[in-house]
Protein backbone atom coordinates (compact mmCIF):
# COMPACT_ATOMS: atom_id res chain seq x y z
CA UNK A 1 0.00 0.00 0.00
CA UNK A 2 1.21 3.48 -0.76
CA UNK A 3 1.23 6.23 1.83
CA UNK A 4 -1.39 8.27 0.00
CA UNK A 5 -3.68 5.24 -0.19
CA UNK A 6 -3.30 4.72 3.51
CA UNK A 7 -4.21 8.34 4.21
CA UNK A 8 -7.17 8.15 1.89
CA UNK A 9 -8.50 4.98 3.49
CA UNK A 10 -7.70 5.59 7.13
CA UNK A 11 -7.58 9.38 7.36
CA UNK A 12 -11.14 9.81 8.45
CA UNK A 13 -10.94 7.24 11.25
CA UNK A 14 -7.68 8.73 12.46
CA UNK A 15 -9.22 12.17 12.45
CA UNK A 16 -12.12 10.93 14.58
CA UNK A 17 -9.63 9.49 17.03
CA UNK A 18 -7.89 12.87 17.04
CA UNK A 19 -11.19 14.56 17.72
CA UNK A 20 -11.84 12.36 20.73
CA UNK A 21 -8.30 12.94 21.96
CA UNK A 22 -8.30 16.70 21.61
CA UNK A 23 -11.97 17.60 21.88
CA UNK A 24 -12.08 20.04 19.02
CA UNK A 25 -11.89 20.02 15.25
CA UNK A 26 -8.93 22.34 14.87
CA UNK A 27 -6.61 20.47 17.19
CA UNK A 28 -7.85 17.16 15.79
CA UNK A 29 -6.88 18.21 12.27
CA UNK A 30 -3.53 19.53 13.45
CA UNK A 31 -2.74 16.39 15.40
CA UNK A 32 -3.80 14.07 12.59
CA UNK A 33 -1.78 15.95 9.99
CA UNK A 34 1.31 16.11 12.13
CA UNK A 35 1.16 12.41 12.94
CA UNK A 36 0.53 11.47 9.30
CA UNK A 37 3.43 13.62 8.21
CA UNK A 38 5.69 11.72 10.56
CA UNK A 39 4.27 8.46 9.33
CA UNK A 40 5.07 9.60 5.81
CA UNK A 41 8.66 10.20 6.81
CA UNK A 42 8.97 6.69 8.13
CA UNK A 43 6.67 5.05 5.62
CA UNK A 44 9.13 2.80 3.86
CA UNK A 45 10.23 1.36 7.18
CA UNK A 46 6.86 1.23 8.93
CA UNK A 47 5.11 -0.36 5.99
CA UNK A 48 7.50 -3.26 6.00
CA UNK A 49 7.88 -3.92 9.67
CA UNK A 50 5.08 -2.41 11.59
CA UNK A 51 1.47 -1.58 11.64
CA UNK A 52 1.13 1.94 10.19
CA UNK A 53 -2.16 2.59 11.90
CA UNK A 54 -0.74 1.61 15.27
CA UNK A 55 2.27 3.81 14.64
CA UNK A 56 0.21 6.83 13.79
CA UNK A 57 -2.22 6.35 16.67
CA UNK A 58 0.66 6.03 19.09
CA UNK A 59 2.25 9.14 17.63
CA UNK A 60 -1.01 11.03 18.02
CA UNK A 61 -1.42 10.06 21.66
CA UNK A 62 2.16 10.96 22.45
CA UNK A 63 2.05 14.23 20.61
CA UNK A 64 -1.15 15.09 22.37
CA UNK A 65 0.49 14.93 25.76
CA UNK A 66 3.84 16.22 24.65
CA UNK A 67 5.26 19.53 25.60
CA UNK A 68 5.28 21.23 22.27
CA UNK A 69 1.62 20.77 21.73
CA UNK A 70 0.87 22.10 25.15
CA UNK A 71 2.97 25.14 24.57
CA UNK A 72 1.56 25.66 21.13
CA UNK A 73 -1.95 25.40 22.37
CA UNK A 74 -1.03 27.87 25.03
CA UNK A 75 0.08 30.31 22.40
CA UNK A 76 -2.88 29.82 20.18
CA UNK A 77 -5.79 29.79 22.51
CA UNK A 78 -4.40 30.03 26.02
CA UNK A 79 -6.08 26.69 26.63
CA UNK A 80 -9.25 28.22 27.90
CA UNK A 81 -12.02 25.76 27.16
CA UNK A 82 -14.84 26.87 25.00
CA UNK A 83 -17.29 27.54 27.74
CA UNK A 84 -20.18 28.09 25.42
CA UNK A 85 -19.46 25.02 23.41
CA UNK A 86 -22.40 22.88 22.49
CA UNK A 87 -22.57 20.26 19.87
CA UNK A 88 -25.95 19.68 18.34
CA UNK A 89 -24.81 16.42 16.86
CA UNK A 90 -24.09 14.92 20.19
CA UNK A 91 -27.19 13.15 21.28
CA UNK A 92 -25.86 12.03 24.63
CA UNK A 93 -24.31 13.75 27.57
CA UNK A 94 -22.89 16.98 26.18
CA UNK A 95 -22.14 17.92 29.76
CA UNK A 96 -19.74 15.03 30.06
CA UNK A 97 -18.17 15.77 26.67
CA UNK A 98 -17.62 19.37 27.68
CA UNK A 99 -16.20 18.40 31.03
CA UNK A 100 -13.68 16.19 29.26
CA UNK A 101 -12.23 19.41 27.87
CA UNK A 102 -11.27 20.49 31.33
CA UNK A 103 -8.89 17.58 31.84
CA UNK A 104 -5.15 17.99 31.43
CA UNK A 105 -3.94 16.31 28.23
CA UNK A 106 -2.41 13.30 29.89
CA UNK A 107 -5.52 12.51 31.90
CA UNK A 108 -7.66 12.87 28.84
CA UNK A 109 -5.34 10.69 26.78
CA UNK A 110 -5.50 7.95 29.39
CA UNK A 111 -9.29 7.99 29.37
CA UNK A 112 -9.48 7.98 25.58
CA UNK A 113 -7.06 5.09 25.31
CA UNK A 114 -8.93 3.14 27.94
CA UNK A 115 -12.54 3.89 26.99
CA UNK A 116 -12.35 4.68 23.29
CA UNK A 117 -9.39 2.61 22.14
CA UNK A 118 -10.22 -0.10 24.67
CA UNK A 119 -6.63 -0.64 25.73
CA UNK A 120 -5.49 -2.20 28.99
CA UNK A 121 -3.65 -0.09 31.53
CA UNK A 122 -0.48 -1.98 30.70
CA UNK A 123 -0.88 -1.21 27.01
CA UNK A 124 -1.58 2.44 27.79
CA UNK A 125 1.51 2.59 29.98
CA UNK A 126 3.68 1.24 27.19
CA UNK A 127 2.11 3.45 24.58
CA UNK A 128 2.55 6.66 26.55
CA UNK A 129 5.86 5.64 28.06
CA UNK A 130 4.65 6.02 31.63
CA UNK A 131 4.25 3.55 34.46
CA UNK A 132 1.09 1.55 34.98
CA UNK A 133 0.73 3.20 38.35
CA UNK A 134 0.70 6.58 36.63
CA UNK A 135 -1.94 5.37 34.20
CA UNK A 136 -4.10 4.28 37.10
CA UNK A 137 -3.63 7.42 39.14
CA UNK A 138 -4.24 9.68 36.14
CA UNK A 139 -7.35 7.73 35.22
CA UNK A 140 -8.64 7.76 38.77
CA UNK A 141 -8.11 11.48 39.09
CA UNK A 142 -9.82 12.14 35.77
CA UNK A 143 -12.77 9.88 36.51
CA UNK A 144 -13.19 11.52 39.86
CA UNK A 145 -13.29 14.97 38.29
CA UNK A 146 -15.83 13.79 35.78
CA UNK A 147 -17.82 12.17 38.55
CA UNK A 148 -17.67 8.81 36.85
CA UNK A 149 -18.29 6.00 39.23
CA UNK A 150 -15.96 3.01 39.00
CA UNK A 151 -16.89 -0.18 40.73
CA UNK A 152 -14.33 -2.83 41.50
CA UNK A 153 -16.22 -5.26 39.30
CA UNK A 154 -16.11 -2.82 36.41
CA UNK A 155 -12.44 -2.21 36.98
CA UNK A 156 -11.78 -5.90 36.76
CA UNK A 157 -13.94 -6.32 33.72
CA UNK A 158 -12.45 -3.39 31.86
CA UNK A 159 -8.95 -4.38 32.73
Amino acid at each position, binding site marked *: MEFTDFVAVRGSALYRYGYVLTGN*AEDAADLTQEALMRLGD*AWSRIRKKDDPEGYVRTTMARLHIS*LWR*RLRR*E*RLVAAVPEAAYT*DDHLGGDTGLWNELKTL*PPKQRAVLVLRYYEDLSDQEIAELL*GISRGTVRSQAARALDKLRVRVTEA*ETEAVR
Partner: protein
Amino acid sequence: MNDRSEAELIRVLADAADAAPGPEGDLVETVRMRWRRRARRRLQSAFAVLGVLAVVGGGTAVARGAFFRGGGEGDVFTAVTPTAAQSSALDPDVVDIRPVSEIWPSAVFKIPAAAADGWKYRPITGLSATQLLLSAESSFEKAGRLEVYDTTAGRSTVLTQMPAPEGVKGYFAQDVEVGTDYVAWWGETPNTPDKWADFWVAPRTGGPARRVGEVTGALAEVTRLGVTRDSVVWSAGDGGIYRMPLGGGASERIEGTEGLHLLTWPWAADAGGKDEETVPGNQTRLVNLETGQTTEVDVQEEVKGLRCGPVWCFGAEGGAALAQRPDGSDRRTLPGLGEGSEPSLLTGGTGFLGFFGVLGVGPQEADENRYVPLAVVYDPATGATAGIGERDRNGGGGFGVGISSSPTSIVYWDADEKQAQECEQVDATSLPLTGPSGAPTPTGKVRACTTTQKGGGKEFTVVNLLAVPAITQ
Protein backbone atom coordinates in the same frame (compact mmCIF):
# COMPACT_ATOMS: atom_id res chain seq x y z
CA MET B 1 -20.67 12.58 44.11
CA ASN B 2 -19.91 10.16 41.35
CA ASP B 3 -23.12 9.77 39.48
CA ARG B 4 -22.00 8.61 36.05
CA SER B 5 -20.99 5.19 34.84
CA GLU B 6 -18.07 4.12 32.72
CA ALA B 7 -20.56 2.97 30.10
CA GLU B 8 -21.72 6.56 29.73
CA LEU B 9 -18.15 7.69 29.19
CA ILE B 10 -17.62 5.02 26.54
CA ARG B 11 -20.80 6.09 24.78
CA VAL B 12 -19.99 9.80 24.89
CA LEU B 13 -16.56 9.19 23.35
CA ALA B 14 -17.97 6.96 20.64
CA ASP B 15 -20.76 9.44 19.89
CA ALA B 16 -18.30 12.30 19.72
CA ALA B 17 -16.16 10.38 17.26
CA ASP B 18 -19.20 9.67 15.10
CA ALA B 19 -20.34 13.28 15.26
CA ALA B 20 -16.91 14.75 14.64
CA PRO B 21 -17.10 17.43 11.99
CA GLY B 22 -15.19 16.08 9.01
CA PRO B 23 -11.66 17.27 8.28
CA GLU B 24 -11.63 20.13 5.85
CA GLY B 25 -10.03 19.63 2.49
CA ASP B 26 -8.06 16.77 1.08
CA LEU B 27 -6.05 15.22 3.87
CA VAL B 28 -3.39 13.88 1.53
CA GLU B 29 -2.92 17.34 0.08
CA THR B 30 -2.91 18.96 3.51
CA VAL B 31 -0.19 16.61 4.69
CA ARG B 32 1.82 17.46 1.59
CA MET B 33 1.42 21.17 2.33
CA ARG B 34 2.61 20.55 5.80
CA TRP B 35 5.70 18.86 4.52
CA ARG B 36 6.39 22.00 2.62
CA ARG B 37 5.79 24.29 5.54
CA ARG B 38 8.14 22.19 7.49
CA ALA B 39 10.74 22.75 4.79
CA ARG B 40 13.28 24.59 6.81
CA ARG B 41 12.90 22.64 9.95
CA ARG B 42 12.23 19.33 8.34
CA LEU B 43 14.62 17.33 10.34
CA GLN B 44 14.51 19.37 13.42
CA SER B 45 10.89 18.38 13.63
CA ALA B 46 12.07 15.02 14.77
CA PHE B 47 13.02 16.93 17.84
CA ALA B 48 10.61 18.49 20.18
CA VAL B 49 9.57 22.06 19.96
CA LEU B 50 10.20 24.03 23.07
CA GLY B 51 9.09 27.46 22.20
CA VAL B 52 7.57 29.70 19.65
CA LEU B 53 8.98 32.85 18.19
CA ALA B 54 7.30 35.43 16.06
CA VAL B 55 10.09 35.34 13.52
CA VAL B 56 9.07 31.87 12.61
CA GLY B 57 5.87 33.31 11.26
CA GLY B 58 3.54 31.84 13.76
CA GLY B 59 5.35 28.60 13.31
CA THR B 60 7.68 27.08 15.74
CA ALA B 61 11.21 27.40 16.86
CA VAL B 62 13.01 24.22 17.52
CA ALA B 63 15.27 22.73 20.07
CA ARG B 64 17.75 20.17 18.99
CA GLY B 65 18.73 16.96 20.54
CA ALA B 66 15.49 16.65 22.35
CA PHE B 67 13.73 13.47 23.24
CA PHE B 68 10.24 12.44 23.96
CA ARG B 69 9.21 12.77 27.51
CA GLY B 70 9.01 9.47 29.21
CA GLY B 71 6.32 10.26 31.70
CA GLY B 72 6.71 10.64 35.39
CA GLU B 73 4.21 11.39 38.07
CA GLY B 74 2.74 14.70 38.85
CA ASP B 75 0.54 17.15 37.17
CA VAL B 76 0.76 18.12 33.60
CA PHE B 77 1.42 21.76 33.12
CA THR B 78 -1.30 23.32 31.14
CA ALA B 79 -1.17 26.93 30.32
CA VAL B 80 -4.17 28.46 31.82
CA THR B 81 -5.93 30.74 34.09
CA PRO B 82 -4.43 32.98 36.66
CA THR B 83 -6.67 31.42 39.21
CA ALA B 84 -6.57 28.27 41.18
CA ALA B 85 -3.65 26.78 42.94
CA GLN B 86 -1.37 25.46 40.26
CA SER B 87 1.17 22.91 41.17
CA SER B 88 4.72 23.98 40.89
CA ALA B 89 7.13 21.16 40.35
CA LEU B 90 9.90 23.63 40.80
CA ASP B 91 12.31 23.73 43.61
CA PRO B 92 12.12 27.36 44.72
CA ASP B 93 15.87 27.56 44.98
CA VAL B 94 16.29 26.44 41.42
CA VAL B 95 13.52 28.61 40.13
CA ASP B 96 15.28 31.67 41.33
CA ILE B 97 17.25 31.77 38.13
CA ARG B 98 18.78 35.02 37.01
CA PRO B 99 18.54 36.15 33.40
CA VAL B 100 21.46 35.37 31.13
CA SER B 101 22.15 39.11 30.84
CA GLU B 102 23.21 39.02 34.49
CA ILE B 103 25.02 35.69 34.39
CA TRP B 104 26.98 36.13 31.16
CA PRO B 105 26.51 39.78 30.18
CA SER B 106 29.32 39.63 27.64
CA ALA B 107 27.49 36.92 25.69
CA VAL B 108 24.26 38.82 25.11
CA PHE B 109 23.77 40.94 22.00
CA LYS B 110 21.04 42.81 20.19
CA ILE B 111 20.91 42.28 16.45
CA PRO B 112 18.43 43.44 13.83
CA ALA B 113 15.75 40.92 12.92
CA ALA B 114 16.03 41.73 9.23
CA ALA B 115 18.63 42.86 6.70
CA ALA B 116 18.49 46.27 5.03
CA ASP B 117 16.74 44.75 2.03
CA GLY B 118 14.04 43.33 4.26
CA TRP B 119 15.19 39.73 4.21
CA LYS B 120 14.60 38.18 7.59
CA TYR B 121 17.46 36.85 9.64
CA ARG B 122 17.50 33.47 11.25
CA PRO B 123 20.44 32.85 13.58
CA ILE B 124 22.44 29.70 12.87
CA THR B 125 25.33 29.59 15.33
CA GLY B 126 28.30 31.57 16.55
CA LEU B 127 31.45 31.43 14.43
CA SER B 128 33.48 32.96 17.22
CA ALA B 129 32.93 35.06 20.31
CA THR B 130 32.24 38.09 18.13
CA GLN B 131 30.77 36.62 14.93
CA LEU B 132 27.30 35.25 14.39
CA LEU B 133 26.35 33.24 11.35
CA LEU B 134 22.89 34.20 10.11
CA SER B 135 20.78 33.03 7.21
CA ALA B 136 18.74 35.65 5.40
CA GLU B 137 15.41 34.55 4.03
CA SER B 138 13.64 36.10 1.09
CA SER B 139 10.39 34.54 2.20
CA PHE B 140 9.34 32.23 4.96
CA GLU B 141 11.96 29.53 5.40
CA LYS B 142 13.47 30.30 2.01
CA ALA B 143 17.11 30.90 2.85
CA GLY B 144 18.90 32.88 0.15
CA ARG B 145 22.23 33.89 1.61
CA LEU B 146 24.49 33.54 4.60
CA GLU B 147 25.72 36.57 6.49
CA VAL B 148 28.22 37.08 9.28
CA TYR B 149 27.20 39.57 11.90
CA ASP B 150 30.07 41.16 13.78
CA THR B 151 28.88 41.98 17.28
CA THR B 152 31.77 44.34 17.88
CA ALA B 153 31.17 46.42 14.78
CA GLY B 154 27.40 45.95 14.90
CA ARG B 155 27.42 45.18 11.20
CA SER B 156 26.68 42.29 8.91
CA THR B 157 28.53 41.16 5.78
CA VAL B 158 27.50 38.61 3.19
CA LEU B 159 29.43 35.34 3.44
CA THR B 160 27.92 33.66 0.41
CA GLN B 161 24.78 33.34 -1.67
CA MET B 162 22.71 30.17 -1.40
CA PRO B 163 21.44 29.55 -4.91
CA ALA B 164 18.96 26.86 -5.86
CA PRO B 165 20.43 24.28 -8.23
CA GLU B 166 19.48 24.83 -11.83
CA GLY B 167 16.29 23.18 -12.96
CA VAL B 168 15.16 22.22 -9.46
CA LYS B 169 11.81 23.66 -8.47
CA GLY B 170 10.64 24.06 -4.89
CA TYR B 171 14.17 23.85 -3.56
CA PHE B 172 14.85 24.79 0.07
CA ALA B 173 18.26 24.96 1.66
CA GLN B 174 18.15 23.17 4.99
CA ASP B 175 20.67 22.84 7.81
CA VAL B 176 23.90 24.80 7.73
CA GLU B 177 27.05 23.41 9.29
CA VAL B 178 30.25 25.23 10.16
CA GLY B 179 33.50 23.32 9.67
CA THR B 180 37.10 24.38 10.07
CA ASP B 181 37.58 25.48 6.47
CA TYR B 182 34.10 25.39 5.02
CA VAL B 183 30.52 26.24 5.71
CA ALA B 184 28.28 23.51 4.29
CA TRP B 185 24.55 23.00 3.87
CA TRP B 186 22.18 20.63 2.27
CA GLY B 187 18.93 21.23 0.47
CA GLU B 188 15.94 19.34 -0.80
CA THR B 189 12.52 19.69 -2.36
CA PRO B 190 10.40 19.11 0.72
CA ASN B 191 7.07 19.64 -0.99
CA THR B 192 7.56 16.64 -3.19
CA PRO B 193 7.71 13.04 -2.09
CA ASP B 194 11.03 12.65 -3.90
CA LYS B 195 13.83 11.40 -1.75
CA TRP B 196 16.50 13.69 -3.03
CA ALA B 197 19.03 16.01 -1.44
CA ASP B 198 22.12 17.93 -2.46
CA PHE B 199 25.15 19.31 -0.64
CA TRP B 200 26.93 22.65 -0.93
CA VAL B 201 30.06 24.21 0.50
CA ALA B 202 31.46 27.73 0.64
CA PRO B 203 34.76 28.86 2.14
CA ARG B 204 34.33 29.79 5.77
CA THR B 205 36.07 33.06 5.04
CA GLY B 206 33.53 33.87 2.34
CA GLY B 207 33.20 33.36 -1.38
CA PRO B 208 30.99 31.66 -3.92
CA ALA B 209 29.17 28.47 -2.96
CA ARG B 210 29.85 25.29 -4.83
CA ARG B 211 27.58 22.28 -5.18
CA VAL B 212 29.29 19.10 -4.03
CA GLY B 213 26.79 16.57 -5.31
CA GLU B 214 23.42 15.00 -4.84
CA VAL B 215 21.97 11.80 -3.42
CA THR B 216 18.67 9.95 -3.67
CA GLY B 217 16.76 7.34 -1.71
CA ALA B 218 17.44 6.60 1.95
CA LEU B 219 20.72 8.51 1.75
CA ALA B 220 18.77 11.68 1.07
CA GLU B 221 17.09 11.58 4.47
CA VAL B 222 19.74 13.79 5.96
CA THR B 223 19.39 14.20 9.71
CA ARG B 224 22.69 15.87 10.46
CA LEU B 225 25.54 17.24 8.44
CA GLY B 226 29.25 17.68 9.02
CA VAL B 227 32.06 19.03 6.87
CA THR B 228 35.74 18.13 7.02
CA ARG B 229 38.68 19.36 4.98
CA ASP B 230 37.89 16.93 2.19
CA SER B 231 34.32 15.66 2.55
CA VAL B 232 30.78 16.33 3.56
CA VAL B 233 29.50 13.75 6.02
CA TRP B 234 25.93 13.14 7.06
CA SER B 235 23.58 10.88 8.99
CA ALA B 236 20.72 9.16 7.22
CA GLY B 237 17.34 8.94 8.93
CA ASP B 238 17.58 5.27 9.72
CA GLY B 239 21.17 5.44 10.91
CA GLY B 240 24.49 5.08 9.17
CA ILE B 241 26.90 7.88 8.40
CA TYR B 242 28.00 8.67 4.88
CA ARG B 243 30.60 10.80 3.19
CA MET B 244 31.00 12.43 -0.20
CA PRO B 245 34.29 13.99 -1.39
CA LEU B 246 34.16 17.78 -1.67
CA GLY B 247 35.37 17.42 -5.25
CA GLY B 248 32.28 15.38 -6.03
CA GLY B 249 32.00 11.71 -6.76
CA ALA B 250 30.34 8.70 -5.23
CA SER B 251 29.15 8.71 -1.67
CA GLU B 252 30.08 5.89 0.65
CA ARG B 253 29.08 4.71 4.05
CA ILE B 254 31.76 5.23 6.64
CA GLU B 255 32.81 1.82 7.88
CA GLY B 256 31.30 0.67 11.14
CA THR B 257 28.60 3.33 11.31
CA GLU B 258 25.54 1.11 11.02
CA GLY B 259 22.96 2.35 13.50
CA LEU B 260 24.98 5.42 14.39
CA HIS B 261 23.83 9.00 14.12
CA LEU B 262 26.06 12.01 13.75
CA LEU B 263 26.16 14.21 16.83
CA THR B 264 28.74 16.67 15.61
CA TRP B 265 31.70 15.63 13.53
CA PRO B 266 33.65 13.51 14.46
CA TRP B 267 31.31 12.35 17.21
CA ALA B 268 28.51 9.87 16.61
CA ALA B 269 25.93 8.34 18.92
CA ASP B 270 23.85 5.19 18.84
CA ALA B 271 20.71 7.25 19.49
CA GLY B 272 19.02 9.99 17.59
CA GLY B 273 17.75 10.24 14.07
CA LYS B 274 14.41 11.20 12.79
CA ASP B 275 12.23 9.35 15.25
CA GLU B 276 13.83 11.00 18.20
CA GLU B 277 10.69 12.42 19.63
CA THR B 278 8.42 9.46 19.23
CA VAL B 279 10.99 6.79 19.93
CA PRO B 280 12.77 7.85 23.08
CA GLY B 281 15.96 6.13 24.05
CA ASN B 282 19.26 6.54 25.77
CA GLN B 283 22.58 6.86 24.12
CA THR B 284 24.81 4.00 25.18
CA ARG B 285 27.85 4.62 22.98
CA LEU B 286 29.78 7.61 21.80
CA VAL B 287 32.07 6.98 18.84
CA ASN B 288 34.85 9.17 17.51
CA LEU B 289 34.75 8.51 13.78
CA GLU B 290 38.22 9.88 13.22
CA THR B 291 40.00 7.71 15.76
CA GLY B 292 37.51 4.86 16.05
CA GLN B 293 37.55 5.28 19.80
CA THR B 294 34.30 4.12 21.41
CA THR B 295 33.15 5.31 24.81
CA GLU B 296 30.50 3.28 26.61
CA VAL B 297 27.97 5.44 28.40
CA ASP B 298 26.92 4.57 31.92
CA VAL B 299 23.13 4.75 31.85
CA GLN B 300 21.28 4.36 35.13
CA GLU B 301 17.97 2.55 35.07
CA GLU B 302 15.59 5.45 35.55
CA VAL B 303 17.35 7.79 33.17
CA LYS B 304 15.61 8.77 29.96
CA GLY B 305 16.72 10.44 26.80
CA LEU B 306 20.38 10.58 27.70
CA ARG B 307 22.56 12.32 25.10
CA CYS B 308 26.29 12.59 25.45
CA GLY B 309 29.08 14.64 24.04
CA PRO B 310 32.66 13.74 24.83
CA VAL B 311 32.55 15.34 28.25
CA TRP B 312 28.98 15.72 29.43
CA CYS B 313 25.65 13.94 29.06
CA PHE B 314 22.19 15.37 29.60
CA GLY B 315 18.93 13.56 30.12
CA ALA B 316 16.08 13.31 32.58
CA GLU B 317 15.39 11.28 35.65
CA GLY B 318 12.17 11.20 37.57
CA GLY B 319 10.92 14.29 35.80
CA ALA B 320 14.01 16.35 36.54
CA ALA B 321 16.84 17.24 34.26
CA LEU B 322 20.01 15.26 34.74
CA ALA B 323 23.67 15.83 33.95
CA GLN B 324 26.52 13.36 34.19
CA ARG B 325 29.75 12.41 32.53
CA PRO B 326 29.72 9.52 30.06
CA ASP B 327 31.31 7.23 32.65
CA GLY B 328 28.50 8.02 35.08
CA SER B 329 30.52 10.24 37.36
CA ASP B 330 29.47 13.70 38.47
CA ARG B 331 25.81 12.77 38.21
CA ARG B 332 23.38 15.34 39.46
CA THR B 333 19.71 16.00 38.93
CA LEU B 334 18.38 19.49 38.58
CA PRO B 335 15.00 19.66 40.25
CA GLY B 336 12.72 22.18 38.62
CA LEU B 337 14.42 22.01 35.27
CA GLY B 338 13.26 19.96 32.38
CA GLU B 339 10.16 18.55 33.94
CA GLY B 340 8.20 17.44 30.95
CA SER B 341 10.64 19.00 28.60
CA GLU B 342 13.56 17.85 26.60
CA PRO B 343 17.18 18.61 27.23
CA SER B 344 19.32 19.44 24.31
CA LEU B 345 22.93 20.16 23.70
CA LEU B 346 24.29 23.58 23.04
CA THR B 347 27.85 24.44 22.17
CA GLY B 348 29.79 26.71 24.47
CA GLY B 349 33.37 27.84 24.33
CA THR B 350 34.40 25.08 26.70
CA GLY B 351 32.21 22.30 25.33
CA PHE B 352 28.60 21.27 25.40
CA LEU B 353 26.11 22.88 27.69
CA GLY B 354 22.71 21.58 28.63
CA PHE B 355 19.57 23.37 27.61
CA PHE B 356 16.33 22.80 29.42
CA GLY B 357 12.84 24.09 29.40
CA VAL B 358 11.44 25.46 32.60
CA LEU B 359 8.01 24.16 33.33
CA GLY B 360 5.62 23.93 36.15
CA VAL B 361 5.63 27.62 36.74
CA GLY B 362 2.13 28.89 37.06
CA PRO B 363 1.36 32.28 35.62
CA GLN B 364 0.62 33.67 39.02
CA GLU B 365 4.18 32.96 39.97
CA ALA B 366 5.68 35.33 37.46
CA ASP B 367 5.01 38.92 38.35
CA GLU B 368 6.77 42.26 38.33
CA ASN B 369 8.88 41.21 41.25
CA ARG B 370 9.94 37.89 40.00
CA TYR B 371 11.79 36.82 36.89
CA VAL B 372 10.81 33.46 35.45
CA PRO B 373 12.64 32.27 32.32
CA LEU B 374 11.26 30.13 29.54
CA ALA B 375 14.32 27.96 29.42
CA VAL B 376 17.67 27.62 31.05
CA VAL B 377 21.18 27.12 29.81
CA TYR B 378 23.06 24.99 32.28
CA ASP B 379 26.83 24.77 32.38
CA PRO B 380 27.72 21.55 34.18
CA ALA B 381 31.34 22.62 34.59
CA THR B 382 30.47 25.61 36.76
CA GLY B 383 26.90 24.81 37.76
CA ALA B 384 25.84 28.15 36.32
CA THR B 385 22.23 28.46 35.19
CA ALA B 386 21.22 31.30 32.92
CA GLY B 387 17.60 32.14 32.17
CA ILE B 388 16.48 32.51 28.56
CA GLY B 389 13.63 34.77 27.60
CA GLU B 390 11.03 35.73 30.11
CA ARG B 391 7.79 34.09 30.88
CA ASP B 392 4.86 36.39 30.45
CA ARG B 393 2.61 37.03 33.34
CA ASN B 394 0.10 34.83 31.59
CA GLY B 395 2.55 31.98 31.46
CA GLY B 396 3.63 32.13 27.83
CA GLY B 397 6.54 33.37 25.83
CA GLY B 398 8.81 32.32 23.02
CA PHE B 399 12.41 31.81 22.05
CA GLY B 400 14.42 30.17 19.32
CA VAL B 401 17.66 28.28 19.05
CA GLY B 402 20.14 28.55 16.22
CA ILE B 403 19.54 26.16 13.35
CA SER B 404 23.01 24.82 12.75
CA SER B 405 23.28 21.11 12.17
CA SER B 406 25.66 20.57 15.07
CA PRO B 407 24.60 21.85 18.49
CA THR B 408 24.33 25.59 18.14
CA SER B 409 25.86 28.24 20.36
CA ILE B 410 22.91 30.58 19.86
CA VAL B 411 19.69 31.01 21.77
CA TYR B 412 17.58 34.05 20.94
CA TRP B 413 14.27 35.74 21.46
CA ASP B 414 12.35 38.83 20.54
CA ALA B 415 12.06 40.94 23.66
CA ASP B 416 9.57 43.34 22.10
CA GLU B 417 7.13 40.64 21.31
CA LYS B 418 4.41 40.86 23.86
CA GLN B 419 1.47 38.74 24.49
CA ALA B 420 -1.73 40.67 24.65
CA GLN B 421 -4.23 39.24 27.01
CA GLU B 422 -7.97 39.46 26.89
CA CYS B 423 -9.79 38.29 29.91
CA GLU B 424 -13.31 37.48 30.82
CA GLN B 425 -15.21 36.17 33.77
CA VAL B 426 -16.13 32.55 33.44
CA ASP B 427 -17.47 29.89 35.69
CA ALA B 428 -14.62 28.29 37.59
CA THR B 429 -15.88 24.80 37.03
CA SER B 430 -15.30 25.16 33.29
CA LEU B 431 -11.56 25.55 33.79
CA PRO B 432 -8.96 22.83 33.84
CA LEU B 433 -7.87 21.81 37.26
CA THR B 434 -4.16 21.55 37.37
CA GLY B 435 -3.50 21.61 41.04
CA PRO B 436 -2.38 18.55 42.96
CA SER B 437 -4.96 16.43 44.67
CA GLY B 438 -6.17 18.15 47.74
CA ALA B 439 -5.30 21.60 46.46
CA PRO B 440 -8.05 24.17 46.81
CA THR B 441 -10.50 23.96 43.96
CA PRO B 442 -11.70 27.27 42.56
CA THR B 443 -15.38 27.98 42.71
CA GLY B 444 -17.64 30.72 41.43
CA LYS B 445 -16.63 33.19 38.74
CA VAL B 446 -12.98 33.47 37.82
CA ARG B 447 -11.02 35.35 35.21
CA ALA B 448 -9.94 33.40 32.13
CA CYS B 449 -7.68 34.90 29.53
CA THR B 450 -6.85 34.45 25.90
CA THR B 451 -3.49 35.46 24.52
CA THR B 452 -2.34 36.84 21.21
CA GLN B 453 1.09 37.98 20.10
CA LYS B 454 1.74 41.64 19.47
CA GLY B 455 4.73 43.68 18.44
CA GLY B 456 8.25 42.49 17.87
CA GLY B 457 9.95 41.72 14.58
CA LYS B 458 12.60 44.45 14.79
CA GLU B 459 15.35 43.13 16.97
CA PHE B 460 16.56 39.90 18.48
CA THR B 461 18.26 39.41 21.77
CA VAL B 462 20.92 36.84 20.97
CA VAL B 463 22.98 34.80 23.40
CA ASN B 464 26.20 33.54 21.83
CA LEU B 465 27.62 30.95 24.18
CA LEU B 466 30.99 31.18 22.47
CA ALA B 467 31.24 34.60 24.07
CA VAL B 468 30.84 33.28 27.59
CA PRO B 469 34.12 34.15 29.31
CA ALA B 470 36.50 31.25 29.80
CA ILE B 471 36.26 29.87 33.27
CA THR B 472 39.17 30.48 35.53
CA GLN B 473 39.34 27.57 37.89
